[in-house]
């Protein structure tokens, strides 16, 4: 399908979508946990991307940064989520794609991870998820206000804080 009638859309939308969609969903999923919600985030991100003139070779970084920001917004905008997730089991998550790895223990870990990400300074959480989504230091720097050197410092602090948060979490 081509772009929507009457819309001004970038002509490379479909190839970029097909090349990057799964990566964008994976990045969002690191934050929100469920595949269904991550796909919602990806839809929102590509909807915004459709109207940008971001250069094609910058698309991946732009998309991943947007996905992480959107997912973190969602995480912090819905305070009911932690409680819900802590209660959740696969059978209770009616919107999630069935996932055998989504055991109760994993769900608890997801909830603790999200709570920890929510408490990290925004920049640290962003860099942390971007780096573990595969962006290089230079790519992260290109899409944030950080220098490549500062990316390392921010990432170092984020990983240390995350480990501390998780070790402090109730088990």
């Amino acid at each position, binding site marked *: *399908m081509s*772009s*929507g*009638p*009457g*819309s001004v*859309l970038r002509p490379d939308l*479909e190839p970029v*979508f*097909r090349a990057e*969609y*799964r990566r964008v*969903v*994976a990045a969002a*999923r*690191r934050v929100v946990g469920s*595949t*269904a919600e991550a*796909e*919602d985030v*990806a*839809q*929102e991100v*590509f*909807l*915004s991307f*459709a109207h940008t003139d971001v250069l094609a070779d910058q698309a991946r970084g732009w998309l991943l940064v947007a996905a992480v920001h959107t997912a973190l*917004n*969602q995480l912090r*905008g*819905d305070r009911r989520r932690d409680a819900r997730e802590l209660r959740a089991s696969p059978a209770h998550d*009616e*919107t999630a*794609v069935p*996932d055998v*790895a989504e055991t109760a223990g994993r769900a608890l*870990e997801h909830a603790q*991870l999200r709570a920890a990400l929510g408490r990290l300074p925004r920049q640290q959480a962003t860099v*942390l*998820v971007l*780096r*573990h989504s595969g962006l*290089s*230091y230079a790519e992260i720097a290109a899409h944030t206000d950080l220098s*490549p*050197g*500062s*990316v*390392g*410092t*921010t*990432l*170092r602090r*984020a*990983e*240390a804080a*995350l*480990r501390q948060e*998780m070790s402090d979490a109730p088990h």
Partner: protein
Amino acid sequence: MHPTDGALRRALDEPASLPDTDRDHVATCAHCQHVLSEATADRDCAQSLLTVDDVHLSLDAPWQRLSDSIAAQPGAAAPAAAHRPRHRKFHRATVLTAAGAVLVIGGATAAAANDWLPVFHTESVAPVTVSASMSNFTDLASIADLSDLSAYGHWQELSQPQLRSVPSADAAQRRTGLTVTPLTDLPTGVTGEPTYHVVDQQTAVFEFSAAKARKAVASAGGTLPALPPALDGAVLRLQAGPAVVRVWQQSSGVPTLVTAEIGAPVAQSSGVSLDVLRDALLSLPGLPPALAAQLRAVTSDGTALPIPIPADQFTSSATTVGGASATLIESKDGTLTGVIWVSDGVVRIVGGPLSEAEVVSVANELG
């Protein structure tokens, strides 16, 4: 001199980033080795936590969803509407609004293919009194659900409805393409900022099956009447949404005002006219009464969206909003009032524990 912690962290992933002199230093420095060890442990912990399972994702369905969303944005051709947020517990007044969204899809359908016959396009709403008894507002949603038709064919929702919170009016607008008009003149007792919720565009397809209908009718002890040949296999596509819901509430969490704006639904069928469809469906024994009442209210020009009003709990009356005809709905216990109308291709709903004058005043501000 020791490299910074950040430089050492980067060196774990990109060893070439560390100058040779620093690398030589680190190799023999106990302090740097300790920092590296800590950084490695923290990195491995993060990596373990942030690794996601490899889930096979289809690309075609999400691409279609994106294409539909783009088409539903302002300036594009396809309209939209919302669907019932299933399995979600919500405050009553919010459910009233969400139910309104479902009432909308109850009469809606659409498709973009050229060979589809337009059969319905919402330009106004029309109340239909039904005798369904309800225990709560969620039942109000269920009585208008076209999935009741599943006994007579194949009902498929191409996307799952989800009511999702978004942080701001801008985010709601960006996500749905709907204009979120700020309200400045709020009723007494309605204060603060609202919370924003969105429902993406929903599409559902119903394919009529004479065989399934015959079976359903037979199980009810009846006989399937003669149906137009073109009906067997006829497909109805319903498209509704996106929607934006705003909720103002007291600090206790009790909603004081709810607004919903939903892209007006349209419907298209694969070559069967609205009259043929409606009459054929109405001829089926065992059709749920509430659905039958709605279908009877569908006029041949297919522009008035029938809204079921459960007579035991609500009353409806005509009013106007911004010059457009509107339907005022009041609970018989006097606790809730709502108004629903259509303007600029959008179905709009305002409701809450308010007076008629208050909801109409808010409605007039929304236009």
